């Protein structure tokens, strides 16, 4: 940031640069762009930011982002209420829901088992999941944790816990090649997983 800018510009720019994907130069450009906005618009933006945390909460049932006690998914009577897809973070719900292939419920763990970052099973929303299964007539669990060591560990841990207590259909999402990507440049770990989770065609 150039030294001759007034302090308020420097400060806002500094704050913006702590956002993901925003470097020093981008934060400076954003700040200068905001300077051209109408005062009313700026005030509205300020309010949107300052009330964000109060207005967005987590769903009491599944942990998804919500405006009230329950999220849109849990409130929707048309969803299949006997299948739960387990994810690490709320943003993964959007990714799965947008594909249009899944119409069940979700459960957000809030992370994955990662001892090296001091995240253990008891830090995740696993007991809430077990309570949900106990109290509702759940038939199937889909484990959609990430395809790395920690995601795999979380899936194995959950599968062990659940199969000891319940009669459930437990599955892990298949992992593999992104659609529309060029096979030539697929990295080998992805390729190996795609091959491991292949399915018969006929």
């Amino acid at each position, binding site marked *: 940031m150039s030294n001759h800018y007034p302090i308020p510009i420097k400060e806002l720019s500094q704050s913006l640069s702590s956002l993901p994907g925003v470097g020093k130069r981008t934060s400076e450009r954003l700040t200068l762009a905001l300077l051209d906005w109408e005062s009313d618009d700026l005030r509205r933006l300020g309010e949107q930011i300052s009330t964000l945390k109060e207005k967005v909460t987590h769903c009491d049932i599944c942990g998804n982002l919500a405006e009230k006690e329950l999220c849109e998914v849990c409130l929707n009577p048309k969803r299949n209420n006997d299948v739960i897809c387990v994810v690490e973070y709320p943003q993964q719900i959007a990714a799965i829901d947008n594909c249009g292939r899944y119409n069940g419920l979700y459960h957000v763990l809030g992370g994955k*088992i990662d001892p090296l970052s001091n995240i*253990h099973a008891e830090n995740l929303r696993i007991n809430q999941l077990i309570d949900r299964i106990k109290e509702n007539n759940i038939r199937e669990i889909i484990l959609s944790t990430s395809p790395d*060591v920690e995601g795999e560990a979380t899936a194995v841990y959950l599968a062990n816990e659940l199969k000891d207590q319940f009669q459930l259909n437990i599955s892990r999402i298949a992992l593999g090649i992104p659609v529309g990507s060029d096979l030539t440049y697929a990295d080998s770990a992805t390729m190996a997983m795609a091959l491991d989770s292949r399915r018969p065609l006929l």
Partner: protein
Amino acid sequence: MGLFNEITAIHFRNFTKLNLTFSSGINVFVGENGQGKTNILELIYFISILRSFRSNNLKNLIQWQQNSFLLSGCVECLNSKMKLSVQLGETRSLYLNNTKINRASEFIGRIRCVPFVSEDIYLVYGSGSDRRKFLDITLSQLYPDYLSALQNYNKAVKSRNRLLKCEPVNFKAIGVFDSILATAGALITQYRYRFCNRLNEHLTDISPIMLAGNDRIKIKYEFSYDISEKVQTQEEFQRSYLNALKKNIDKDSQYKLTSVGPHRDDFLIFFNEKSLNNFGSEGECRITVIILKIASGRLSNETDNNNVIYIIDDVFGELDEKRRESFLTYLQDIKQVFITTTDNKILDCLPHSSVFNISNGKVVKCKE
């Protein structure tokens, strides 16, 4: 997989800017010691597997008073061409055809490179970790699933060790990492075990040519846990290793370390029936290392359908004339070879090679 048509280096070791074109077959760099011959092999090796055979501190590879180096290699493989680039400064960036890529596993293995360098002597003199490094580098180049299993395995060992240090110990969580270790570890072990068996077949072929009389070199994979000799399949390795983890859990929680598994396995090298790891003479050790490398180079080349390249850093001094000739005949099947030497006479044995003279960091091609 491929071979190098061209390399460019900027601020690498003593090269400010270097651009060289290569032919297939044998490329020889001739020059006095200390002129930068080994640096060329080091940069070829670095583009191939993103490591140095000389230094663990990669900052040492950056030219004095510079912040980063940039290496590019134009690689030809199966009639298609690609460009591999790597920049290393504070961080490392990898590019495939000028597009940034994130995983090292997408980069490594495009060029499969077998080194013959003085550091190879650690195969005999070094510790188990030197020998594991040799297996890991060789197999990672040949089998992409080996590299990803190894990365997962190492991460899982660290996680399990961390869990062992937590009070109270969560055995349920440790059990989860046991199963991840067993899956990745079985794949690693099976590749290594098979590699050692096949390496022995090559050693049997090469020993009579490179050694006197009935002298023979053999290796034997050493498990860090009890395992039946009959174990062959991946499922069997998985079960045996999982059992070993369970059996050693008391010891592991006492020492807060995972005591068994591929990260603790080793292999023994035998000269005739005697283990060289402890009892070899210097001469025996030196010739053994060269023979081991020839065998593993041939094995890699055979596995990879004659697609590996060799880099050879002046090892000829170790060999008498007869063995030197035998060694050079082993190079004829290799698609591309880079050799350094101080000795012009070597060129008489290599009539069809490209020759580069190197002096004070300047490299001049003097024969196509």
